[in-house]
């Protein structure tokens, strides 16, 4: 199932784009970037609804009823949680809205990683599998083997740049940074330090950059290209809504003064 519905279509789409671009040097990197754009376009409605959900969460922080609940049940955390869930339900808000787009990426990341490794065919067994993965309409003879070079990278290996004798994993750093920026931008500003949704988002904005940075550090650099492109598109998509919380990027920028704005 996984092979048939995830790996094969993904690998073939990647190879189709690669062939379309002329399958020369550096084109597999551009194929991954274009592939990411296609994936982002396909998942656009999903991401848009998540962005909308995150915005609703952001607005909720300044809602009178919400703030009254925090004050009224300040000493009863269970009651606060119950009341918060009631409001979420009533207003159709998903409290994990800002985390979900990142989590949804997991099957794509896994599929893409396997597709990249298979497409680049580092070992004979990979190439044999690749030959059997490619759909009959593809130009197999022309595109195999793929050119794994992209800029200074070998897309099938982890990336690093030698600076003063040290191997610096530049892509891993960029992946961690862009993931951090994306998580922070989509994180709702909160006036309440006990808000659970905001706390979860806060944790995600720390763990996700570290985890994706670790992936980029240890796995094929092609996957890092996907992360960076996907993050950049995510930031653009969110910024386009005009609700990006740029102040979150600054230390202590996640706190908003309590206001009594009524909905």
């Amino acid at each position, binding site marked *: 199932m996984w092979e048939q519905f995830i790996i094969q279509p993904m690998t073939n789409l990647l190879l189709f784009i690669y062939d379309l671009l002329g399958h020369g040097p550096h084109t597999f990197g551009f194929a991954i970037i274009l592939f990411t754009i296609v994936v982002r376009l396909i998942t656009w409605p999903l991401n848009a609804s998540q962005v909308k959900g995150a915005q609703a969460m952001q607005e909720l922080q300044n809602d009178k009823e919400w703030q009254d609940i925090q004050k009224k049940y300040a000493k009863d955390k269970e009651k606060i949680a119950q009341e918060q869930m009631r409001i979420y339900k009533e207003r159709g808000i998903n409290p994990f809205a800002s985390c979900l787009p990142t989590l949804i990426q997991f099957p794509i990341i896994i599929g893409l990683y396997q597709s990249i490794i298979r497409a680049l065919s580092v*070992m*004979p067994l990979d*190439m044999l599998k690749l030959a059997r993965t490619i759909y009959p309409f593809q130009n197999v003879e022309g595109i*195999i083997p793929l050119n794994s070079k992209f800029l200074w990278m070998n897309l099938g*290996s982890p990336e690093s740049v030698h600076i003063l004798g040290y191997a610096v994993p530049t892509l891993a750093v960029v992946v961690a940074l862009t993931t951090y920026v994306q998580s922070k931008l989509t994180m709702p500003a909160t006036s309440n330090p006990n808000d659970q949704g905001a706390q979860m988002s806060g944790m995600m904005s720390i763990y996700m950059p570290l985890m994706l940075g670790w992936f980029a550090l*240890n796995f094929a650099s092609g996957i890092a290209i996907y992360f960076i492109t996907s993050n950049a598109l995510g930031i653009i998509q969110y910024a386009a809504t005009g609700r990006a919380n740029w102040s979150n990027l600054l230390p202590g920028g996640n706190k908003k003064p309590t206001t009594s704005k009524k909905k």
Partner: protein
Amino acid sequence: MKTKRLTLITLLALGALLISACSGRSTVANSWHGLSADAERAYVSAGSLIYAVDLKNGSEVWRYPAKVDANILFFANPVLTADGQLLIGSAGSKNHEFISLDPATGKEKWAKVFTGAKGAWVAPPLVLNETIYAPNTDGFLYILDMSGSQIADPIEIGGALWSAPVTDGTLIYLSSLDHHVHVIDPAARTAQAAIDLGGAIPSSPAINSDGAYVSSFASTIEFVKANNKHEVITKTESRVWGSPVLDGETLYYADLNGKVYSFDLASGKMNWSVLPDGPVAASLLIVGNQIYVASEADPTSKLGTLIALDREGKTVWSKEVGGKLYTTPVASADLILVAPYQADFTLAAYDADGKQAWTFTPAK
């Protein structure tokens, strides 16, 4: 909140584990075993270890290295030399080591391991006139003396090199995944021709005094001459992975659909073609009157199968070996040796009648 934090961390860790489990780093990707033999022992390169196995009873004679290092991986066929060396390079990430072992003891022979290549070693080397020609996946052909010292600049070929160079005694023919057969003059240490065959070439050519017969992903068998001339002599139903085998005036080869062909070079006509079992990635082995076919996996049982055909293409016998068969069988001491991938054992020996003589399973 602590529970939620734990749940989140567990979820992320599971995600990381899943990705890690899906495939290892590119440098530790798996591949099938390498195999060679002399009159007394078989040599199997299987992942982190190389085993010498006694042909009399299938017992282990030695293994290398004594301590397993996951960053050293052996997939290439080990090559025995006339001066008593066993040559092989590592496909692992550690230093891209190319080593020489004593076939009798498994001890390293060179004072210094060669670590000058930038890529993995998938191809076996060629020894010609006491010089080692070792192709690497970095696209270079390295030239070493018999003590492992680099004696000339490597020749840049281009494309990953996965197959052993072959020689007619004067010139060296080297296939590349870059779709070309490269003709090298060992005296001048230069590439004198590169012939485009229109598809990746993962296996070595079959050579005769006039040139080389080459199979490729272009689903053709081409005859290539050193002067850059080449012609398609026949087409195949599917892509061809293994090398064609030349036996007198007849060329034998098999494609990835599993079709086995016998082609008469004198008349330029197909003698016969048969489909004995599943797909075939290995090269064919011809011993006496039998053609041995290592079928990757039987269509029904999904198990690797060794088939003996007669010279007319009729099946003499067929044995399910187990695992998947990608490695080309090797003949020695009246035995046919097969090294299945992902089987319960690493090596199996059959006699000419298809009777299993022994299997070799490495002790833990």
